[in-house]
């Protein structure tokens, strides 16, 4: 396989393919940068053009785009506290506080560098798992997938902040919002008030934008401040890269986590950043996650780029999309006269390998391109709120509208946004709500399938028990560990 990898590299380096990859990268960064537009929009935009294209060129275009969406989406998350795409929500948690301190450049330097490393790790993961992908994918049965969604939900508990009951309630609210629309096991519409719009449930981009961006808008206006509280901007791209290098184990750890979660079909790639953030919060010593700790940016940013590499495994080899973006990629493959399936490993192996290379190259090019943009874009954070916000409002509304092209998107944006604003001023944590929303449908689906298929037998499955223990350790063990480390610290003093 090594020889064919080299051969694939020479194919990727063909000038016309490089050109199309760069086109893809350009578009990927733009859709990442614009809140509300994400890989899905970029994909559907490119889809009409790949029809009949040479697969190598077409894939260079598509993968180039996919690879860098989570590089570009870092900017709005850090600078404005608005998720640039649904994969960069967790970056807000520490990225935005850093911007408030005027350290936007540092945060972005670290984030972009980690995005690059994460993307490369994702590409390598894709390469390494190719021979063993099949047993890996088929090793997760429904009960195990259900436990994995529970693991994801337990992150909500970790992110609850000071008041656990507020956090759990927010998570439950998310689950309830997530159960709007058709149930997975039966076409029965719940809580839809007879609106056809609600019959498929609310869209993640709308909810993510509303819950984070709307409160930011209003707060920026009422406080009449720029994002950077002092109105001054410290430079520090290099410091940021230094931060990332200092935490290389965290970077690699999160990237591996990202690609692993990405490749598990059915879990929903949108929680990857939260899982990485939560895992980071639990494992990094002496952290101040949530108050502007640069490691809180490093963890999710390493993971969300790595995810795309992982998500391609089930997509290409099994025709099972791991995310909304890859679902469209499947359509793109068909339009180029190919079909996802085991054949991607035999007759079309060179194409699969060229995808790996494109992924790696695009991540490097994309990150470097974004680095050069840090300086001008960081200035956004010193513009006073009332001058920046009106433009943002327009951008956000158009962005929200791209989910379903329906007025329902805008109404949902407003309603959820108001909820988010009230939660902000009352200091209710919002991430649990979002995690609950994302995982609601998977949790319901796999719970139902487990019960229906196995009765209560599945509770005895060893992997299920192992994950249950892991969840218990995560929820309780962390506090115990903290106590121990605090105790040690005191002794040290």
């Amino acid at each position, binding site marked *: 396989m090594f020889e064919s990898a080299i051969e694939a590299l020479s194919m990727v380096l063909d000038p016309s393919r490089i050109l199309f990859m760069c086109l893809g990268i350009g578009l990927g960064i733009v859709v990442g940068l614009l809140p509300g537009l994400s890989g899905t929009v970029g994909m559907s935009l490119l889809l009409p053009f790949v029809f009949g294209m040479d697969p190598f060129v077409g894939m260079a275009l598509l993968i180039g785009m996919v690879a860098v969406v989570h590089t570009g989406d870092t900017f709005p998350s850090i600078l404005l506290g608005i998720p640039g795409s649904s994969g960069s929500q967790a970056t807000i948690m520490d990225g935005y506080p850093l911007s408030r301190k005027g350290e936007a450049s540092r945060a972005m330097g670290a984030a972009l560098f980690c995005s690059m490393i994460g993307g490369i790790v994702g590409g390598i993961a894709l390469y390494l798992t190719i021979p063993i992908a099949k047993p890996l994918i088929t090793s997760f049965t429904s009960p195990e997938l259900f436990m994995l969604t529970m693991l994801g939900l337990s992150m909500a508990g970790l992110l609850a902040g000071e008041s656990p009951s507020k956090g759990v309630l927010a998570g439950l*609210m998310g689950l*309830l919002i997530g159960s709007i629309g058709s149930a997975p*096991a039966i076409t029965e519409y*719940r809580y839809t008030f007879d609106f056809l719009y609600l019959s498929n449930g609310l869209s993640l981009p709308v909810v993510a934008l509303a819950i984070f961006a709307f409160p930011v808008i*209003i707060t920026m206006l009422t406080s009449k401040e720029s994002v950077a509280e002092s109105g001054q901007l410290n430079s520090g791209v290099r410091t940021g890269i230094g931060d990332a290098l200092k935490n290389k184990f965290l970077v690699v750890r999160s990237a591996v986590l990202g690609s692993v979660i990405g490749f598990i079909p059915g879990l929903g790639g949108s929680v990857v950043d939260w899982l990485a953030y939560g895992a980071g919060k639990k494992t990094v010593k002496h952290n101040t996650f949530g108050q502007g700790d640069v490691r809180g940016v490093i963890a999710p940013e390493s993971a969300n780029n790595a995810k795309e590499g992982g998500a391609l495994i089930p997509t290409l080899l099994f025709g099972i999309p791991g995310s909304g973006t890859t679902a469209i990629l499947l359509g793109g493959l068909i339009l180029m006269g190919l079909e996802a399936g085991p054949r991607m490993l035999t007759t079309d192996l060179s194409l699969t390998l060229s995808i790996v290379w494109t992924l790696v190259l695009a991540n490097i090019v994309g990150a470097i391109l974004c680095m050069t943009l840090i300086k001008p874009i960081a200035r956004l954070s010193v513009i006073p709120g009332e001058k920046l916000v*009106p433009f943002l409002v327009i951008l956000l509304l*158009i962005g929200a509208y791209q989910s379903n092209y329906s007025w329902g998107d805008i109404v949902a944006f407003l309603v959820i946004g108001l909820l988010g604003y009230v939660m902000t*001023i009352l200091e209710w944590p919002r991430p649990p709500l979002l995690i609950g929303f994302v995982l609601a449908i998977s949790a319901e689906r796999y719970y139902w399938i487990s019960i229906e298929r196995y009765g209560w037998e599945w509770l005895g499955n060893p992997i299920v028990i192992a994950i249950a223990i892991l969840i218990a350790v995560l929820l309780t063990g962390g506090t115990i560990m903290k106590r121990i480390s605090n105790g040690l610290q005191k002794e040290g003093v």
Partner: protein
Amino acid sequence: MNKEKLNVIFTFSIFIVFVWAAITALTFSRLAQFFPLYVSVAGSILSGFYLFSEIIKRFKQKEKGEKVRVPIIRPCIYIAWVIGYILLIYLIGLLLASTIFLIAFLVVESKFAIFKALYSTGIAVGVIIVLSTLLNISWPQSLIGI
């Protein structure tokens, strides 16, 4: 308004929503019912307890007299701006609505000089047009169909 008081009101509304969701869930068929029912029952119980504890806390705190105030009027004005803008889009379409909204907001709230407001609005509307043609972005439909 007093923050604690607002928190109690908010928790109470969440409690009502959960209870309503639980009652509504009872009308669903078995397959569609279990998940929203679990969630909303858990939510009702927890929010009930939390509400109770908050009210008790409030009674205790009353003597201390320490209250954090949350601004109400200013946020409402801004929210009204956003809602007004949305209504305007609904009436006259995105382009016209954005133009009017931007000019009005920049002049009234951001205290821009008219000329500068016009100039910035022009650029922004230009960006919208360029974006939507090149990125194939759709706009909300309005009553008069622009």
